[in-house]
């Protein structure tokens, strides 16, 4: 499998990282190099092998249904690049 410029552009779009058109060939090259390295995995016989779900199996921790958090609007908004009237403000989202 090899990554062409269109694929590189699609991946950049999915990852929401602006990549100038001129840089796409280099990006595609780099990604291809890494993907080629990963292709070694195809040599491994994985028939009947369960994919790892957790490296140290144990019972999933649960919490009780009690309100223990929140009521901290100021702290939540404190680091925001743009907060107004208790909201995070972002450039208009067009649906």
């Amino acid at each position: 499998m090899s990554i062409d410029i269109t694929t590189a552009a699609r991946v950049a779009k999915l990852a929401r990282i602006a990549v100038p058109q001129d840089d796409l060939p280099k990006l595609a090259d780099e990604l291809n190099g890494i993907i080629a390295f990963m292709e070694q995995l195809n040599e491994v016989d994985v028939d009947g092998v369960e994919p790892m779900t957790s490296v140290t199996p144990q019972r999933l921790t649960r919490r009780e249904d009690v309100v223990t958090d929140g009521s901290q609007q100021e702290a939540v908004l404190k680091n925001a690049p743009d907060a107004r009237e208790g909201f995070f403000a972002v450039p208009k989202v067009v649906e």
Partner: protein
Amino acid sequence: MLDLTYETPKPKVIAGAKQDWELVIGLEVHAQVSSNAKLFSGASTKFGAEPNSNVAFVDAGMPGMLPVINEECVAQAVRTGLGLKAEINLYSAFDRKNYFYPDLPQGYQISQLYHPIVGEGEVLVELGSGVARTVRIERIHLEQDAGKSIHDMDPTMSFVDLNRTGVALMEIVSMPDIRGPEEAAAYVSKLRQIMRYLGTCDGNMQNGSMRADVNVSICAPGQYEKYQATGDFSHLGTRCEIKNMNSLRFIQQAIEVEAKRQIAIVEAGGKVDQETRLYDPDKGETRSMRSKEEAHDYRYFPDPDLLPLEIEQAWVDDLAAHLPELPDEKRLRFMEDFGLSDYDSSVLTADTADAAYFEEVAKGRDGKMAANWVINELFGRLKKDDDKAITESPVSPAQLGGIIDLIASDAISGKIAKDLFEIVYTEGGDPAEIVEARGMKQVTDTGAIEAALDEIIAANPAQVEKAQANPKLAGWFVGQVMKATGGKANPKAVNELVAKKLGG
């Protein structure tokens, strides 16, 4: 217990320009889990709080924050599964659904794609007396709700509130077993009823506690049966998904409109594209959200911050043992225990509060009479009174029971009882005391009735003659006696006396 057998409803048929078409509908209902705290954080789920006040740092996707699951949300999903007679998966797991949106702070939604907590189940959806559709449930999974983006507060900016972010949702996915708009609405109401009974979702569609994505396709008559026989979806038309419907009325309208759109395309020789659409109730049309869809590739993968969710059968059994009576069971029991009709029983079990009210009234009394009073008098009066809920009724079950007792003991007539009900409704008080204090007791003293009747007979010889010739006219005398006694005369005693005096 009564065993009811239902007739399967006919599918909705829409006549196209060239031929008839049937509808095939499947729904994905998103139901907000009733819980105090969110699915993976300790922040409150309360509706209507100050923006961004019910937010833990993990809800805001702050760096290094981690999710920890709320056990009650898991229990609620299991209860819902049990209520839908579904398979409970002791092993389930959480996956990340990745996409960018300002009200999705982590950049992914934690959901259950590969291993949902609940598997296949079914719901009986009644559509009128003796007619019902069994809709199969494919799965229920737990997932996080997103926050809210507000687009109309500023001309160039959108505002984001994360209060709803991370609230637990159950996504209830049906099989394509629904065959018309009314069935779809009835299915959603039935789900809502069941979840309200279980206490797992408040079902409030205005607040967004329940929303539905509706999958609609059309097919020629006969095709659906082929699909049923083979399980092969290629017998059906291409489906479109109408997103985010939050009213039963709109669900019906949208299905109707979307089906007609698809019919027009197919009959013109075109092809329906599988896509996501939005219903615009103002324009009465659905429109494509294709631009959005194309950019999406959700890159699901198991959430490495969470281990698989393994629950124990004993825990599930315990939840099952403490499950409240479900609507279908209650309906059958009311029919059996109180001799109610299927219809009355359905009306009284539509809501748990209604059912509880009725049961209290009916306890130790005539069930049919109690049902009659609750449905016709009380519900009717509440409706007139600003559509009050049963929980706001000024007449308590004990008061209504008292009125019924007075009728049953012949202390008051049915007609007086209605007056009494109105007094209790508007003024309150103990019905027996009111009857006593206001002299509303029925006159059963035949002497008094006879005296009144004799007076009327003496004053109306012409009427007496007519009535003797035609006994059907005797009713006039009964009416006059009732009038003379202010409605308090026992109608049965009056009737007997009139018959005796006039015709003998």
